[in-house]
Every structure is written in C-alpha cells, then in structure tokens.
C-alpha cells in the first residue's frame, strides 16, 4: 500500500519538477498520487509539453515503492511540506522546496534561531580569520547555516564545530554524498555534533551547476539573517544575499579592504544598506535580539548543578564582561574567607574563570 508521501518523493526524482510545477500539479489533481497517474494531455495542460514528456519518461523508470528503501539504506530522513517538522522559516518563502532530505538527528523545531553565513570559495586570510572569529562567537547564539562549500563556508562550519556549536550544511548534490570530497570528514563532524546536512536533491544526485542557486535560496530561507563574510562582485554568496532580501530576511556583511577583490561584493552590499558586522552583538542588534537565549541555557546549566545560596548570589553578579574580585568583595560585602571559598567552588565547577588583569568572568 503506497502512501501519498511516496509519490511526493517520486516527483522529486523527476527532472523539471520544481516546487512551482509541483504546486500546480497538486492544485489540478488534488494529490500527488493522482498526478503521478494522470493522463498525458492533462499533464501537458498543467506543466507544458517539454516537462510532460520528461515526466512520462520518468514515470516508466521510477518505481515509487522502491524509492523509500534507497533513502532508508542511505540513512536519510525526508521532510515534506506536509510534515510538522519541516523547517518553519523555510516554509514561509515563496517557493519552498516541497521535499528535503536530511542527514542527522537535528530537529528544526528545537532551536528558534538560525543564521546563515556564506562567502567566497577563494577567501583571503582575512576572510578566513573573520569567518572563524564570527562563526565561533555567533554559534553561541544561533544554529549556523552554510553551504559546505570550499572557502568561507567550510571555515564557518569548522569554527562552529570547534566551539561545540550546532551547524547545518545545505548541499547542492544528493545526500549522502558530500561535495567537495575534502569536506567529507567535516560533514561527518557536523552530523556527529548534533547538526545536520540538508539537500533537496534525490539521493546520490551529482552536483550540477544549476543546483547551486536554488540551494542558496534554502540557505537564506532557513535563516533569520544572512552574513556574507567575503564575496567578490560575482560570488554565489551574493545570490544567497539576494534571496534573503526578496524574502525579507536581514542581510549583513563583513566589511573588507577596498583593495581586495574578495571584498568588493560585501562592501557593495554595505553600500546598498546591508548591516556591517564586526562582532557578535552587531548581528544580534540587526536582528533585534538580545543574547537572551544563552541566558536561558545558562539557567538550565545552573539548575543542573547544585549551587548553594552564596554561589548563586555570586554568580548572579557576573557576566561575560566580568568584574574585579575587588568589586565583588564590595558588592557582596562578605568576609574574605567566605568570598574566596565561594569563588573557588564556582571556578571548580567551571562556571567562572579568572582572567589576566584580575577580572572574574562568567563562562
């Protein structure tokens, strides 16, 4: 007994059927199953002669009942527009992919904050440094979405993984393959750390040139905002930025040297009104957010560790800006003995840390 879902997957395997034509078919025939078995003339009416011919050809080769097996063997999951677990932000764009393949345990409903970070495949050392610095910091607040490509994308994923953050790679080929090959190990890391790989292309599809612009629309569609780290004037990262603009997502860019070709695109974005990004708080500000989520996480962390009243009080006085021990002594008004004991136990629990210069910061 075949389910509607299997026909959705089948349509996904037909070249020429994108979200728009698929929506038309659904509208005309009511469901995917009906559309799959529809007559040639009816199909021609809906999708035009060329695609109808393709569809009829594919229909002969594709067996809907076999497709799900392949998917299972590749350990992939399928998210369709029918599923509740479909990424909510992506659902809002004009032509959301009607089907996504997902690798990893990630659940899009778990985190409310997504940020895309993209850039050129041929970064300068400055671009790499900026990507790593910003991605690391921003991963404290966001799930970071990028394209697994060489260059900036890769650096972004790496930095997030190193910081223990969660990141999602959107690919332009069919899972479970990963292109470029040199990023296979990284892709495994991304999945192992609780992130995911995502693609709208059928399993094992090759990375076709025309796949990439639509892939970019998923990257921007998944996210509240896009940070372009480094992009020349003709970089694909600018396509992602354009999609973001069309969908009303915030576009941000990392300013660069006026003499660097790899910064032409980003600098122009800024000239056109994109928010320049120098540090984490710039992004939060542009998106109208505070680093509140982390606060919640922290509260979680705090609840998990048994803290006494004194420790809680001391901890409540600290943030990542930090305070001098001197200030803390004054603020708490405690005896040195109690103060140092409390501070020490917080330090041992890994909640605070002393820094050079004498400040105590919260981790």
């Amino acid at each position, binding site marked *: 007994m075949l389910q509607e879902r299997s026909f959705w997957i089948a349509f996904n395997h037909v070249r020429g059927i994108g979200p728009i034509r698929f929506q038309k078919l659904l509208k005309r025939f009511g469901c995917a199953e009906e559309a799959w078995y529809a007559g040639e003339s009816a199909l021609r009416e809906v999708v035009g002669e060329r695609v109808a011919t393709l569809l009829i050809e594919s229909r002969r080769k594709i067996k809907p009942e076999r497709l799900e097996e392949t998917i299972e063997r590749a350990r992939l999951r399928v998210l369709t527009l029918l599923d509740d677990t479909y990424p909510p932000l992506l659902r809002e764009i004009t032509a959301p992919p009607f089907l996504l393949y997902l690798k990893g345990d990630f659940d899009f409903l778990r985190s409310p904050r997504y940020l895309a970070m993209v850039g050129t495949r041929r970064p300068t050392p400055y671009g790499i440094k900026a990507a790593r610095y910003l991605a690391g910091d921003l991963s404290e607040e966001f799930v970071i979405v990028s394209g697994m490509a060489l260059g900036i994308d890769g650096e972004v994923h790496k930095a997030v993984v190193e910081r223990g953050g969660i990141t999602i790679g959107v690919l332009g080929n069919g899972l479970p393959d990963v292109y470029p090959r040199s990023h296979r190990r990284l892709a495994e890391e991304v999945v192992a750390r609780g992130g995911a790989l995502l693609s709208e292309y059928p399993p094992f599809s090759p990375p076709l040139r025309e796949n990439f612009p639509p892939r970019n629309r998923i990257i921007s569609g998944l996210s509240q905002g896009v940070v372009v780290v480094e992009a020349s004037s003709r970089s694909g990262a600018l396509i992602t930025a354009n999609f973001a603009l069309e969908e009303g997502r915030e576009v941000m860019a990392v300013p660069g040297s006026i003499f660097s070709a790899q910064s032409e695109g980003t600098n122009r974005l800024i000239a056109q009104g994109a928010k320049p990004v120098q540090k984490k708080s710039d992004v939060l500000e542009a998106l109208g957010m505070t680093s509140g989520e982390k606060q919640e996480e922290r509260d979680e962390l705090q609840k998990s560790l048994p803290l006494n009243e004194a420790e809680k009080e001391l901890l409540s006085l600290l943030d990542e800006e930090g305070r*001098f021990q*001197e200030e803390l002594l004054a603020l708490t008004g405690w005896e040195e003995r109690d103060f140092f004991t409390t*501070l020490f136990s917080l330090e*041992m629990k890994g909640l605070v840390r002393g820094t*050079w210069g*004498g400040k105590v910061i919260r981790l």
Partner: protein
Amino acid sequence: MLAKVLSATTWGIEARMVEVEVDVGTGLPAFQIVGLPDAAVQESRERVRSAIKNSGFAFPAQRVTVNLAPAFLKKSGSDFDLAIALGILLATGQVKLAFSFLLSSFVFIGELSLSGEVKPVHGILPIAHFLSSQKDPHSLILSCGNAQEGALVEGVKVFAFRHLQEIVDFLTGKIGREPFSVDRDKLFTSFSGREDLAEVKGQRKAKRALEIAACGGHHLLFIGPPGSGKTMLAHRIPSLLPPLSLDEAIEVTKIHSVAGFLSEDQPLITERPFRAPHHTISDVALVGGGQWPRPGEISLAHHGVLFLDEVLEFRRNVLETLREPLEKGKVTVSRATAIVTYPAKFILVIACNPCPCGYWGDPQRSCTCSPRQILQYRGKLSGPLLDRIDLQVEVPRLEVAEMSAEKEEESSLEVRKRVEQVRMIQRERFCKDQITLNGEMRASHLRKFCHLVPEAKHLLDQSVEKLALSMRAYHHILKVSRTIADLEGEERIQVHHVAEAIQYRSLDRRWE
C-alpha cells in the same frame, strides 16, 4: 720614640681592632703611613699635621712613620685621624700620661678637621658592638656627633669630645669627663606615626594579601594599572609588621651606620626600613659592592621591605642578583680588596603594570597593546625572580565613587595585632628549625608543617589539574595556605584556606 694607640675599623658590619703605631725618629722630615691605607687614609697626613699645629702643639720636623696593624687588613676612611694625631703627640713627648697603662684601655675613633676639631665618622655602632663582645671591653673615645650611636651598646663606656685639645686634657687628667649615656628605651620607643592602612580605601583583596605577607614573610607582586594604588599599599607594609626588637634595631642600625645613613638626631633606627630604589639602579647599588664593599639596598632593607616599582623596567642582570639573597637572607660581596657578608632578610614587594601601556582592564581607559605585546609582557614577568613570589595580586583601578565611600577601614594597629599573633605561632613551630617564617619554608618543611585535611588535599590536587596550575604554584599555595590557616589559629589546613591561597596565584594560570 714609639707610641701605640688603639683604634678600630669596620669590616662589613663587623669590626676589627687596629693598632696605630707611631715612630718619630731622626732623618729628613717625612710623614709616612703604612699598613694598606687607601687614599682617604693617606690624606689624613695633611689633616693631622694641621690639627696638631692648630691645637697648640708642634708637628715634629722629623721622620714620622705610622703603621696601621694588622698590616694585611685594608684600611679606608678618616677614622684613624684621631689615633694618629695622639700617637704623634705621645711619641714626640708633647703629651705625657700620668698612667701610661690607661692608654691601652681606650679605643680612639674620629676624623680631625684642620682646626683640631673631632668629627663624627660612619660605622661607630658595629665597632661599639664589637668592643662590647670582647672579654675586657675597651672604652671608646670619639666625637660628640658619634656619642649617641656609640652609647647604644651596653657594656661599653663612651667618652665624647669636641676637640683634640680636650682629649689631651682628659688623658693627662686636667679635666674629668663622665661616660656619655643615652636613654635607649626612650630612643627605642620613639615610634613616629607611619602611614596607616586605614588611609587606603577599598582594595580589600590587596589589603588581605598585605596582611598575609606581613604574617608569613611572603614576597608579594602587585599587578595593576597606573594610579591603582600599588605604591601606596606597599608603603604600608612596615606599619603592619611588629616593631623591631632591640637586637634587630641594632642590627639594622649597624648596616645603616656602615652605609653612612645615620644622622646625629637619629642614632638608632627603630622603624622597619622601607627601601624603594628607582628602576635605574645598578646591580652594585642594589646588592652591595664597590671597591670597599658597601651594603646595597637589599641590606638597607634588612628586617623591612624592599619595594621594586615597575619591576620590568629594572635591568635583567640587576634583578638576577636578587636570587642569592632571597634564598639565603644574606649577601656575600666579593671584591679584590675584601669579601664581606651583609645580612639581607626582607619582604620583597614588586609591582608592575598589567600590560606595556598599563591600561589593560582599566574601566576608564582602553588598552592600546596588541595581544602579542601582552603575551610578551607576561613572558617577561616569569622567570627566577617570580619563582620566589608567593602572593600575586591584581590591583584594579577603582571608580572614584568606591574610593570616596565613607567606610570605616581597619587601621594598621588592628592588623598588626593579628600579625604579631601569627608570628608567635610560627616562632613556636619553627623553634627547632633554622627558619622563623612560613615564607622561608623549603620542601622538607612543607612536608613537615603543612598538613591538609583530606578534603583540602583532594581539592588542591584537583585544582592543579582543573585550573591548569603548575607544580611550582603548588608549593606557593601550600605556604600561603599555611599562613592563612595560622591567621585563624588552625593547626590543619582547611578547604577554605586552600581556596583563598589559590586566588593569589593568578600568574600561574595558563591563560588562553
């Protein structure tokens, strides 16, 4: 004719007897001094000649030979003027003593002016101290300016005079003179008010560290931006230390006497010294030396505090010289002319900025240093000197509001009471060992005296791992926690003692 007069000279902070032999005989008029005299002693020929003439006597137109015995001992300074002059007067028969044996019971020390006036010289206290230790103490005859200093030592009679003529009259029995006496207790208790700890607002951690340092004799490092009060804090350590005992005071005074830093109105140093040499100081000036080895700043700080502000500005070789004295509590200076040992037991306080520009972590000004510069700077701070520092304290620059806060601050006197208490505990603990303070403990002492309760031991081991502390830090933490435990009168070191001690090891953390 031959005459023999006794004098003495200092040797480091010890003293030696010197016999001044004068022979006046026939020959062409000449005046020779032998017995390894230096230039200053040679010059005394001219002073003695004029002094004798201007005191109503005649300088012999004969061959005068002066020998300063023992001849192998190098002699310097103007201390022998008086003895030489008297020797000449006796040898020429211008002065005849009623009882010649009288002469051998006196030691003569003083410089002569051309008019025959007797002038004070340096280093009287060590000489008086030396004489008092002899079986049959000699009496001292010296200048009025040296009288108080000489009379400080018990068991030595001191006769003070203004003029050569007076001394001759005294020796021939024309005038009588009572031995000079000084009220030592009065001198000793004249404790002038020092800077008080209560004048420093806030800075509780730094003050606490001062207290611990004063209790256990721990060396201390302050890290803080300019204007945070590092110097002000360091200046107040002497006020936290127990007053010098009379023996200590005499020991300190001896050093200052040899160095020539005593004044007539301050013959006894009763307050703990605080020495703060400028960072341009040479190694010789710091540890002592010179052709005739003089005590350096570290010896002048004996029983007190040596403060090195901007410690990274000091030349490296200068700081290196501190290693031996910090280890041994004394310094041996070897020169061609002499090998001398000076005591040098002090609390070392060093201060520096947190970064090259100084404003790292300052709430008002931003630091202009690159991370690399700061890293290099920290690297400079490590090394052998830092190895001996038990307490490392950051001194932040406080907001004006905090400083003006009207809060009752503890006075030095209150803290000192606790310090004295803790020092007593330590005296009892170390009565069988060669040390007196927790800060001086070696590895063997640590094993013997630093017993931790099991939880504290566990915690310390854990923290070394978790906070990435070096093993070097481990020993420092033990020492400091010993003192903190002593402050609470605890025999065994508890968890919170260790917890506090770890907070004074900021430089041992491996920073990212």
